[in-house]
């Protein structure tokens, strides 16, 4: 069985809480003003802003950022895009095509997981493995950073652990897929 040490949040990684909090404080007022001027509620502003922040971090991780200005300006652009998409307002003021070209939203962003209960099952069966795999496939960390975060001796050991974790997750998904007829093509 593959085990992983408790992950530590490393300074400089994209989910570092201090960076996240600083960006939250500096970028939220602009989005709140935007939403408030368009008749939205505090909850609308919070939802739109948090999703825009998520897009910003995902793009940074994937190395596909279209950012040309500050992170705050980028988050504002994504928030405007999300606002128009969700509330179908202001289309006449800002063409959606223009926003889509500049501030693209990940294709699977508003798509719910095919089988949400599967994720819960995987968390119970192997949360540590999910954390290790997520640091690679979602956070986009390299094997060196992963070996440091999870306490592996070197990158090779971390890579072997990653493959074993993927085997474990895949086996669980395969077993559970018996419950979902459409799961395997």
């Amino acid at each position, binding site marked *: 069985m593959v085990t992983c040490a408790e992950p530590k949040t490393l300074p400089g990684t994209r989910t570092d809480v201090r960076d996240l909090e600083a960006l*939250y404080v500096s970028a939220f007022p602009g989005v709140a003003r935007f939403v408030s001027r368009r008749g939205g509620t505090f909850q609308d502003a919070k939802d739109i802003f948090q999703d825009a922040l998520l897009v910003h971090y995902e793009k940074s991780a994937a190395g596909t950022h279209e950012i040309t200005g500050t992170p705050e300006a980028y988050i504002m652009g994504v928030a405007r895009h999300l606002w128009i998409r969700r509330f179908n307002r202001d289309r006449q003021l800002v063409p959606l095509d223009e926003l889509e070209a500049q501030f693209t939203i990940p294709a699977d962003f508003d798509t719910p997981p095919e089988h949400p209960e599967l994720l819960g099952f995987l968390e119970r069966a192997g949360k540590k493995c999910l954390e290790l795999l997520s640091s690679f496939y979602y956070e986009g960390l390299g094997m060196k950073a992963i070996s440091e975060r999870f306490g592996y001796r070197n990158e090779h050991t971390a890579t072997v652990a990653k493959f074993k974790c993927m085997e474990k997750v895949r086996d669980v998904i395969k077993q559970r897929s018996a419950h979902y007829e459409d799961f395997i093509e």
Partner: protein
Amino acid sequence: MRTSLNELREMEGFLSGTMKPGETLLFRARLLLNPGLRRNVSLLRRCHAVIRWYGRKELKEKIQSVHNRVFTDPSRTTYRSSIEQLFHKR
């Protein structure tokens, strides 16, 4: 049957685009001929999707906890009220 780690490594290389062009061509040909390999690649794609959903869910929770901290921290009263005022004017 349990797929070996080597096959898993190979499929990862194919899906991530890090496989060499010649090997990719060969792998594509094997995919056409081997339904078992097609099923395994499809399963691995779904694993990636589930892992991404897990990562996104964790980050959403982290962002929400940052929000809770910012909006309850006594040292941020002025910041908080300046934002709340935006929604009280109407």
